[in-house]
């Protein structure tokens, strides 16, 4: 029987948020879309595990988080064997969008650059709380950690971001006409 308990339209509607979160996790547009595609495929595979009526977004973010963690573990294993590409911790160096046709979004680039300086664990909590506006309990579920850990990571992430931004504040920033100047 064709049983499809997943609300397809809600899944389609969730794509932009999933892409945004994947971009924060991977730092790279193509890898982000690959991660989203895998997340959607996994959701369909595991669709019987989704409790109809429960928060689809939290469930999707959970799947994405688990895939991302597995990818990093795999990357770390590969790095031990090969250790040529990638930057070891598997979080990926931030890649700036450089396609000539792409409208360069200065603010986005700055945000992604600051986020890339945080450990992935802190980045996740910071974005889920501050941007996705998820409840702390929900974040704890998505990341499978205690609420106390959510709070301590959040606290460290914000302190680190504050210091990093204070450092950059003195350096030349991106100019308003959209051209980027080198920082440091």
């Amino acid at each position, binding site marked *: 029987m064709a049983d499809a308990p997943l609300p397809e339209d809600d899944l389609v509607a969730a794509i932009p*948020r999933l892409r*945004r979160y994947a971009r924060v996790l991977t730092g790279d547009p193509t890898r982000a879309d690959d991660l989203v595609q895998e997340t959607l495929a996994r959701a369909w595979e595991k*669709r019987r595990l989704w409790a109809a009526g429960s928060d689809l977004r939290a469930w999707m973010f959970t799947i994405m988080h688990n895939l991302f963690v597995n990818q990093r573990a795999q990357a770390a294993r590969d790095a031990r064997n090969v250790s040529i590409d990638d930057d070891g911790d598997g979080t990926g160096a931030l890649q700036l969008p450089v396609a000539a046709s792409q409208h360069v979004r200065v*603010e*986005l680039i*700055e945000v992604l650059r600051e986020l890339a300086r945080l450990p992935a664990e802190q980045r996740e909590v910071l974005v889920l709380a*501050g941007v996705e506006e998820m409840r702390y309990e929900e974040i704890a579920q998505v990341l499978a950690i205690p609420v106390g850990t959510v709070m301590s990571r959040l606290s460290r992430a914000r302190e680190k971001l504050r210091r990093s931004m204070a450092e950059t504040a003195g350096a030349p920033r991106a100019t308003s006409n959209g051209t980027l100047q080198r920082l440091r």
Partner: protein
Amino acid sequence: MTRTPITEADLHARADGQLVPERAAEVDDEARRDPALAGRLAEIRSQNAWLRSGLDSLLDDSPPQRLREAARGPGNRLRRLASRLTSVRAVRYAPAWTAAATLVIGIAAGWYGRDAVLARAGMPITFAQQMAYAHVLYASDPNRPVEMWAPDEKRLVAWLSKRLDYPLRAPDLESAGYALVGGRLVAGNARPTAMFVYENAAKERLTLQARKSTSADEAAFRYAVADGVGVFYWIDDHCAYALAGDLDRSQLLTIGELVYKQLAEAGGKG
């Protein structure tokens, strides 16, 4: 004061709007007395605003086709289109005395009614749906969308022309960014349909389908959407064409006009 001291967790929860109103009021009271606390609250709020203003721009990007398809689940789209085809066919083969009712249903259903000319021309009233169905069925196959590949274009066109008993041409869509992948023969109602598959650099595919028409009627561009697949179709010079793709109407129309123009010029009507 018998108040519970403000913790680090309270501070973050206040800035993120996650405290119950009574506790939020207590934190705000304390912040009025303690500039350091007020400063940290403001700091966190401005961080959040800064993160959002940067990252929200990502929400405006329209998702690529591969993600939209992945969200629909494996094979689901095809299944849905197929079930619609079945339900429409049931109406079509109903006894003659229900014809009036069928017509009403057709018009009520919107775009079936607009297919009247195609129906008179011997086309099933579900022409656009069939085209959409064939598009999804074949164009979504990453490895083998066609029976004969583009390097054999001459043989491909000759073969399909022979099977359709109509001199076909595969339009050149390079100017729109689409290259010919190849073609195949598709079963249609009573008559075979030729399909050309095109692909752009992003691996997005378009299909152009052609089927010989029994009447001399011509039909201007019509447009239908079946499950996200846009279809432009028309009849020209005894042949019914359908251009299908996961593009929006204006993009598809631009390419449709390109196809129409090239075919018309080839037919010597320029």
